[in-house]
Structures are given as structure tokens and as C-alpha cells.
């Protein structure tokens, strides 16, 4: 079944959804707004090339996703080679032990409060506090289910840079969640 486009409905039907999608993946309202604008503009310019195989919604999401990865790629361009040293110089002691501030404590995860909206808001806040590229790899890996090889290719980064970024993201996020929810 071939789909058709209805540009007159795009903003009312998809603008908020695409904005939420973009905002969860980039670091500011402004960047997310630019991405949504660029998405609709590209879609408008390219509407004659739409063949109707994908639904209108998934076609727009694909364009949006591409704009987001373009944005990530630009940010990753200025990334120099990272080393393991960058993963936790402040999170671990000189001898490689957890510090008093960072040492994990027991989480009581079986509590009913854990699957509430409040919990997810805190988790999201912690994710928002990640540095841009840490957030990018975290989102691509854990929310978009991408494989690390795919992520490296898309961002044009080495796998060792990827490891450092994802590892740093997880350390930060874990610490933040522990501080703000489980303590």
C-alpha cells in the first residue's frame, strides 16, 4: 500500500513528537528546534522524491534521525584521541580504587517506586547532565539499540574513543542516579 504526504498537517501532527525525539538526543532546546526546522525543510524540499513505501511518520523520523547524527558527527569531529585516563581520573583514586564519593552502594531496586514517572524523570535528568558526546553514545546505544560498530561508523570515531565515551557516560549516570534517587 502506497502512502501519501500531507504537508499541511505535518506541523500539527508531528512537530511536538519530533521535537521530543530530538530533544532527548541533543543538548539544548535551541539545537532540537533547529533540527526540527531542518527536518521539515528537507522534507518539504524533498517531497517529490517520496515514493510512499515508508509511512509519512517514519519518513519524517528518518530525516530527523539523519539530522541528529549530522549534528553528532560535527561534535565528534573535534574529538581528539581519548585515553583510558579520561574515563575516571576523578572517579577513581590513583591506585584505581573507588573513592569515598564514587563507591557504589546498595540499590533497593525492587521497590514499586522504581517504574514511576518520577523515577524516569530523574533518570532523564541524569542523562541530560552528560556531556554532549557521552550523551550521544549513550542514547544511540541504550535508547536506539545501535551496535557499537554502527555508532563508531556514524560518528566517525575510533572504537577506543567509543569505549571511553560510553564508559564515562555510564560512570557519571550511575553516580548521578545513586545520588538523586537511591540515597
Amino acid at each position, binding site marked *: 500500500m502506497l502512502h501519501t504526504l500531507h504537508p499541511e498537517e505535518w506541523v500539527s501532527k508531528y512537530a511536538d513528537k519530533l*521535537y521530543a525525539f530530538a530533544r532527548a538526543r541533543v543538548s539544548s532546546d535551541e539545537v532540537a*528546534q533547529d533540527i526540527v526546522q531542518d527536518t521539515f525543510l528537507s522534507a518539504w524540499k524533498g517531497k517529490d522524491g517520496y515514493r510512499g513505501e515508508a509511512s509519512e511518520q517514519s519518513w519524517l523520523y528518518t530525516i530527523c534521525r539523519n539530522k541528529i547524527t549530522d549534528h553528532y558527527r560535527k561534535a565528534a569531529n573535534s574529538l581528539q584521541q581519548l585515553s583510558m585516563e579520561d574515563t575516571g581520573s576523578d572517579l*577513581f583514586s590513583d591506585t584505581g*580504587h573507588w573513592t569515598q564519593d564514587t563507591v*557504589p552502594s546498595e540499590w533497593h531496586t525492587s521497590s514499586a517506586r522504581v517504574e514511576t*514517572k518520577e523515577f524516569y524523570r530523574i533518570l*532523564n535528568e541524569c542523562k541530560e547532565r552528560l556531556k554532549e558526546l557521552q550523551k550521544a553514545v549513550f542514547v544511540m546505544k541504550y535508547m536506539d539499540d545501535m551496535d557499537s560498530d554502527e555508532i563508531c561508523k556514524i560518528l566517525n570515531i575510533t572504537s577506543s574513543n567509543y569505549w571511553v565515551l560510553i564508559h564515562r557516560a555510564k*560512570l557519571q549516570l*550511575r553516580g548521578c542516579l*545513586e545520588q538523586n534517587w537511591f540515597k
Partner: protein
Amino acid sequence: MISCKEASYLTSKKEEGKISLAERLKLAFHLMMCRFCKMFDKQNTFIAHHAKQMEDALADGNEVLLPETVKQRINDSMN
């Protein structure tokens, strides 16, 4: 024996299945001895699981709205 810092790094690699046998053994040995790193391992799994659900959980009653001014601008540019 590897440090907690190295163990936490290997935990991440293990999750991806990109860990060598030697690394796997070093990590297993460390986790046997270190309850903090064991907790880190469990907590990572927990975070990964909930990160997946987070977007849907927050989308319900969506609070993130594109400003009207931007919507207007977009509509204007498509005419």
C-alpha cells in the same frame, strides 16, 4: 589483580561481548573479590534496562512541546 577502575571498564566491554578470554577471566576474578564492582555491574544492567523504557514512559502526557513561534516559522517556510 586488576583494579576497580579497570574492572569497571571491562564490565562495559563485556556488555558488548567485545571482551577477550583473558579479560573475562581477570574480570570474573575481580568480581568474586569485590562487592563494589559487583554492584556496579548489576547497576549498569539496571540502567541499560530502564534507559530503554524511559522514552516511552516520559512520552505519556508529553511535556516537551515545540514553541508556537517555531511552528509558525516552519509553516510559513513551507508555503
